[in-house]
């Protein structure tokens, strides 16, 4: 099935996409064929988030993004989704006052649709987009000194995924403050109560030591009048006392910065870690032994979170660390990947009733390649997750002969996994693809197994083709990826990023395609 948006030349305009049916296998007819396309051009398409929320309560998600214009300042632009899947051609504009640092979205008021949740350095406010202006509209929800004290006059932070943390049907807020987090329990009718606080920082550690992990290496080549051509390699150490002492000399005052200040603390992540129905807190800091430490605060229905962690474990914090449910028990397990160059090790730790044996990984897998990515994905609703590993290799012979590199997709099932292990030792399927200058456009984004593009309840392999179009292949029962795509979307612009979303209530998958200077929203048409 070949779709085209070649007729969609006008930005911010809605166009019903023509469907071009070719010689198709019968199964292909299951895929969505009609989309209403909306293209949004933005100067900073990659710097500013695009938010999709239902602000007017019509059951259809609207497009929200922040805009800055000299003389006007910051505004939220809202393109409302129409009943036919198109979006309003002229955005609703909402002023962002200079005090606002971040914005989230939640349904707090009885009127339909979500309100804007606005964060300043001293409090949190709600504002309805359906009421013009701030007067008689804005309401202070709570007072809180946010860790970020200074608003950016041109950008605004978005805080997605505001949640009902204690599962009582009311929105709650977990807010980072001045060295502490505050858990605000929603009491309904826009009332919030500070239920508990805790710190993720290392209070027993010297201030000089906190947050210092500067070891690393940086290489630059430059041309300048002083040195001509120069290669500079900087190696930074992780000494706690690097920069701790400054010798003042008024004649040679530092002139590079008028002010340099920072305030950081480890991020507290909400995660389901034990068997109750309440989200818990996890964060990583440095233990008293100087090593990395995983900290868990279990949520208590009445008191929120304890001041001190309920469980801690020493952890090697090098590499990437994620919490993800690997065995479909609804409790998040821990995955750490680390390595250097083209060697990558993955360490899988099982969540045992909210605790981890971090001294001994339950499973270790090794991969050889560049840009190794691991995704743990339930292919079908409620099925056991599979492991998808992708990476690049650069065979010297291929590079010499064809100037090409290889991309590999591995899919590991679970049916033959050994006792206490999560995934099979050997991959159930392997897909190798070769790329050279001729099809370099296909490298703009990795193949993704995260989305169900045809809405059949099973995830598909979505990828950018060598022509820059977006296509999907089926993942077969033996976990192999079909040879031919069952769906293809031809965009007039190169696709660099894609997502499959639910933008209305018709149960048909919609899409977001990100290009260099524009984003296309494809809403499935009836």
């Amino acid at each position, binding site marked *: 099935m070949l779709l085209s948006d070649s007729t969609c030349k006008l930005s911010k305009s809605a166009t019903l996409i023509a469907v071009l049916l070719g010689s198709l296998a019968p199964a292909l007819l299951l895929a969505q064929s009609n989309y209403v396309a909306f293209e949004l051009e933005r100067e900073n398409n990659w710097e500013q988030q695009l938010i999709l929320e239902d602000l007017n309560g019509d059951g259809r998600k609207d497009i929200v993004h922040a805009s800055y214009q000299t003389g006007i300042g910051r505004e939220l632009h809202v393109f409302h989704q129409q009943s036919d899947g198109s979006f309003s051609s002229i955005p609703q504009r909402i002023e962002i006052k200079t005090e606002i640092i971040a914005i989230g979205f939640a349904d707090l008021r009885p009127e339909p649709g979500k309100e804007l949740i606005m964060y300043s350095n001293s409090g949190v406010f709600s504002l309805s987009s359906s009421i013009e202006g701030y007067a008689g509209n804005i309401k202070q929800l709570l007072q809180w000194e946010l860790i970020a004290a200074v608003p950016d006059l041109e950008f605004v*932070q978005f805080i997605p995924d505001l949640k009902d943390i204690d599962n009582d049907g009311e929105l709650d807020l977990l807010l980072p403050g001045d060295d502490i987090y505050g858990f605000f329990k929603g009491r309904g009718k826009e009332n919030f109560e500070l239920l508990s606080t805790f710190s993720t920082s290392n209070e027993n550690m010297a201030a000089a030591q906190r947050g210092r992990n500067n070891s690393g290496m940086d290489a630059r080549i430059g041309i300048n*009048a002083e040195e001509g051509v120069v290669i500079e390699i900087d190696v930074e150490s992780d000494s706690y006392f690097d920069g701790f002492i400054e010798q003042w000399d008024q004649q040679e005052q530092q002139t590079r910065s008028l*002010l340099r200040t920072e305030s950081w*603390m*480890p991020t507290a992540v909400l995660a389901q870690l034990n068997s109750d129905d309440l989200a818990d807190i996890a964060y990583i800091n440095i233990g008293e032994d100087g090593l990395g430490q995983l900290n868990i605060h279990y949520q208590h229905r009445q008191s929120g979170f304890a001041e001190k962690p309920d469980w801690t474990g020493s952890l090697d914090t090098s590499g990437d660390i994620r919490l993800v449910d690997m065995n479909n028990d609804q409790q998040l397990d821990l995955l750490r990947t680390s390595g250097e160059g083209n060697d990558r090790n993955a360490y899988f730790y099982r969540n045992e009733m909210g605790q981890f044996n971090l001294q001994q990984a339950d499973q270790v897998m090794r991969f050889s390649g560049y840009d190794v990515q691991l995704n743990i994905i339930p292919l079908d609703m409620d099925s056991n997750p599979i492991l998808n590993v992708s990476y690049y290799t650069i065979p010297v012979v291929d590079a010499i002969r064809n100037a090409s590199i290889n991309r590999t997709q591995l899919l590991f099932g679970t049916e033959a996994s050994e006792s206490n292990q999560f995934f099979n030792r050997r991959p159930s399927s392997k897909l190798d693809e070769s790329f050279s200058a001729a099809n370099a456009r296909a490298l703009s984004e990795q193949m993704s197994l995260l989305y169900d593009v045809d809405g059949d309840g099973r995830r598909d392999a979505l990828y950018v083709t060598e022509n820059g179009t977006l296509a999907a292949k089926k993942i077969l029962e033996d976990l192999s990826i079909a040879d031919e795509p069952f769906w293809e979307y031809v965009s007039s612009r190169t696709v660099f990023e894609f997502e499959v979303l639910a933008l209305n209530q018709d149960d048909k998958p919609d899409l977001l395609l990100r290009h*260099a200077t524009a984003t296309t929203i494809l809403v499935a048409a009836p």
Partner: protein
Amino acid sequence: MNSLIKLFAYFSACTLLPAASQLGAQQLEFLQQEFQLPLETENLLIADINGDDLQDLIAVVDNALQIYFQSETGFHFDDLSHRIIFPGQAVGWDLSRQFGAAGSSSIIALIDGSEILAWQVSNQSVQDPVSILSNLNGYLSKGVNRLHFSQDINGDNIDDFLIPGAGVINLHISDGSKNGDKYNYQDSLSVRSELRMRTNLDGNHLERRTGQAIRIPMMELRDVNSDGFDDLISRTEEELNVFIANKEGKEYFSSQASYSLDILEIEERLGEFDIDNLDFSNLTGLLALTHEEILDDVDGDGIDDLLLREGGKVSLFAGSESAMNFSEPRQVLRSGGNVLGTFLQDENEDGLKDLWLWRVESISVGDIFVWLALSGSIAIEAFIYPNDGERFARRPSRKLTIDLKFPSVISLTSTFRDIEKEVRESASDEEIFSSLANLDANPSGQDLLLMINNQVKIFFNSIQPETLPEDGSELFLGALDYSRERDNYEFNIRDVINNISISGNRQLNAVAGKTADRIIELNSEVTNGDIVPVRLNADERDDVFIFTDTDSGHIRGLLLLSN
């Protein structure tokens, strides 16, 4: 040590001095003093704040400054009575020699963006604060921050103030007169400033930290018209503004810039990057979208002119004492090919700065694929347009070719991985800390301090300092072994990498097998160690902070004060 180690391409390995240390070094004596600082100490500033020629210590502890005065017997680290607790929520503090007795420094602070207070110090006593300037329209983030806001801008030996505001820096420049004890200041001048900010409030990533970092770059103050007074250059992403000092006028800077360059207009003229129209056979063609602005004296009249490069077009605008003639460029040069950049440097040694225009050959996507696995090379060319005293020659007088050779990306990745590993192992080796210092005032050799097994070992004059000629002649293109007689050069990144050695290891190798000149036994086990040389008294010798450990309440160590 363990601070930033810069390994430049042209660094030669340290040359060892003869095995014998210099005479007399062994006789050096130090006052050894154990120290402890509160665990909350964020950093230390060394300054003589009471004018006794002995440097004192100012520690930032929570929301206060803790002062440790130095006396002939050293410091009293257990005396915590000299403390400044700032009023207000948002404080930016600095030091100034303006207020208080000659030779002393005062602590000055911008309080909540609205008032400047000064704390003078007499002997070993901190006086009550006095208000210097109030009703200011500044803005600071909460907490106690180091703010370099005190500076003599107009050369009258009176401190002026740079107050950060919302997207601007407000300049408060003294007019030299006094009202009682207070100096009078001209009306403030607001100059646009770019706040560099990084904020993360997204709570979905376990490894990322939550918070905010802010940097306000210092504005550039220098004399662009040779009248002996500093002028102000303000550059943002949108415009370049130059404010020429008006030394005779009521206002040192007028409220309007003397001349401006609209950078947004330049970028609009050059066009935007469009990936869909990217020429994969010439990725370096993207350089046509780049621009640069150089303010420098081209014609030798002492007044800065403006060199504007837009892609391959170079325009020269002539500066005058009070303006820049933008109506017509004095000269326009156009270059084909992929222009990397330009700079001004006297090539023919006639005292005038010549134009160096750098070009790079076309690079395709195919080239990059090949370089992933195979070594490669890129030809970089420099075209030199001599300066005739008013403008540059229409055609280059000389062309330099540099063949930049590099190993494959795979090989580079592997090599860098090995170096990083070596650095990490070196840094994480808790048994050995090292630093270079000048303990005996002998400039011919640096002294190496090693902290090993709870001992500090000192090797006097064991490392020869790296020196560069004062005129910088060796610096310019030093990596290429540049000379005016040679036009073709090769620069092999592989050679550079092969010459890299980790500083700590290099120093350890320098004293391998040698006996230390001095050994100091430490009383505590080293757990959080480091060695930091500083200057704390009036002699020409370094003093040394040796950090050993921290416990639940303190940072501890040993201070070596040169005697």
